[in-house]
């Protein structure tokens, strides 16, 4: 505050310290604690029990893999042999996108990704051109 500065210069004894202080350009601190803390607007000011401690709450995918289980342990430390599914990290397996001319077949995927089987009702609706919808 220039007014304050002027006052300070004019009267060293009766000076007023301004509340606004210029702190300099904002920089991101080099080390930040990312441990979960309660949200400042949370009504309870605390996190629910188990928040951040379940297997699905690992801070990164690689740390998740250390504890995850799928047909056996997924973590590198748990299964070093190369023949086990998940023994290598996804990252080291290369890009996800199939190579040119290579396709994935839906029937090879888990059931939830496959086509939903047609019901008799659906076939009837199609056969009747939608006329049976009103039944």
């Amino acid at each position, binding site marked *: *505050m220039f007014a304050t500065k002027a006052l300070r210069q004019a009267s060293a004894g009766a000076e007023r310290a301004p509340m606004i202080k210029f702190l300099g350009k904002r920089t991101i601190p080099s080390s*930040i604690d990312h441990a979960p803390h309660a949200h400042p607007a949370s009504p309870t000011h605390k996190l629910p029990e188990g928040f951040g401690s379940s297997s699905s709450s690992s801070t*990164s*995918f690689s740390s998740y893999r250390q504890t995850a289980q799928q047909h056996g342990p997924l973590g590198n430390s748990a299964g070093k042999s190369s023949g086990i599914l998940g023994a290598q990290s996804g*990252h080291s397996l290369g890009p996800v996108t199939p190579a040119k001319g290579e396709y994935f*077949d839906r029937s090879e995927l888990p059931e939830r*990704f496959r086509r939903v089987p047609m019901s008799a009702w659906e076939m009837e609706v199609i056969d009747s051109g939608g006329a049976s919808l009103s039944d």
Partner: protein
Amino acid sequence: MLRSLQLPRAATARSAFKQSSLPSVIAPRLRRSYATESEEKDLVIIGGGVAGYVAAIKAGQEGLKVTCIEKRGTLGGTCLNVGCIPSKALLNNSHLYHQILHDTKNRGIEVGDVKINLEQLMKSKDTAVSGLTKGVEFLFKKNNVEYIKGTASFAGEHEITVNLTEGGEKTVVGKNIIIATGSEATPFPGLEIDEKRIITSTGAIALTKVPESMVVIGGGIIGLEMGSVWSRLGSKVTVVEFLGQIGGPGMDAEVAKAAQKVLKKQGIDFKLSTKVMGGDASGEKVKLQVEAAKGGKEETLDADVVLVAIGRRPYTAGLGLENIGLETDDKGRLVIDSEYRTKIPHIRVIGDCTFGPMLAHKAEEEGVAVVEYIKKGYGHVNYGAIPSVMYTHPEVAWVGQNEQEVKASGVKYKVGNFPFTANSRAKTNLDTEGFVKIIADAETDRILGVHIIGASAGELIAEGTLAIEYGASSEDVGRTSHAHPTLSEAFKEAAMATYGKAIHF
């Protein structure tokens, strides 16, 4: 923080499929493609409202591959489509109409026959809305944000199934996911919303004729704003509020009292400390049974239209949260930590569907902060410096703590007050209702709260927000030059009154 961007689960899973040796007999069939695969994104945002679209643009600016999924068909969410923006268009134009009707003669303006053309009024509102929503779509293109129109639900912790608006289904995979699905009007038990006679704020911005009478259940900001619009256009408006003051939580009691007085003068009736017991919409008029909140004489209110404005609740229906084990708290809010992370850390939540006030500008702040947390590991929202504004006339705006809250906290404080009747610009505008009230710590002089009622209070509050964000003292503001003649001088004078004395009062 880049580590959460590095190792996508779905990527590993599919790579694992590539490793498996498939029987040669099915090899030719592998040529068939069902076109449901989607490129894995750095960030997928569910919801294209203020929180979601701001996060999407910010993510695009930060160089992330980002997808935003919105089911409404237009971007901008409640705020742009059926909230802040259309209501402000109606508030502004209905104020003009009201002023031309009642406040021109003493200004030396003589007008002839003044009529309202409701259809055109609504059209001008729609123009403002469509201009802004299309503007957001343009910003998406400019910042390389993929926009998917459809309804999203979680299929896994990284996979989202989208029921496309145009038909069909698509799977979107994201290394990080933000839920920004917003909120919806809280229904009133026993009253079925039809958006014609029993309406929420959504119906209140789209009525096709001016109702003769309107009862507003809830004397909060939304109820008073929409009540003002229809009162100015000719409805007999009665506001029923359960609490003993209008304005909802946060509004300073002294300001709330002043606002009620002014609105009453404008023709709005108030029934405070009154609860609605039930309603009947079977007749020509909607009948509402009300009685004193503490119990007492029952009364029936008749209305052509009943506006239910008792608040809003988080909207997370259909998201498939159960598929990934995410739960909401007792108020339907998704629980997050200080970095907006749920218990599944790569899934974050911002805006109305989580903690904090349901305000568009709070959601915007979070939209920027959450992307900064994802990209840089550091973000910032000061929940102690979020302004609130009620766009009635006069406007009411505040930031920080109100006097009751400061008193309850036990902190010694001082108050500076400056009325607009003593402000030169307000005088020239013939618009002198209201005052600026500043509350500061008695010991340090640090500003704790700013409360304004008056024309342009919503604009003036920015200075108060900045002062609180910077941790300014009232003397810091009082010693800062403000242009003359402006309404902002009232702010300076209120600050002067806080640490010393105002000059013009």
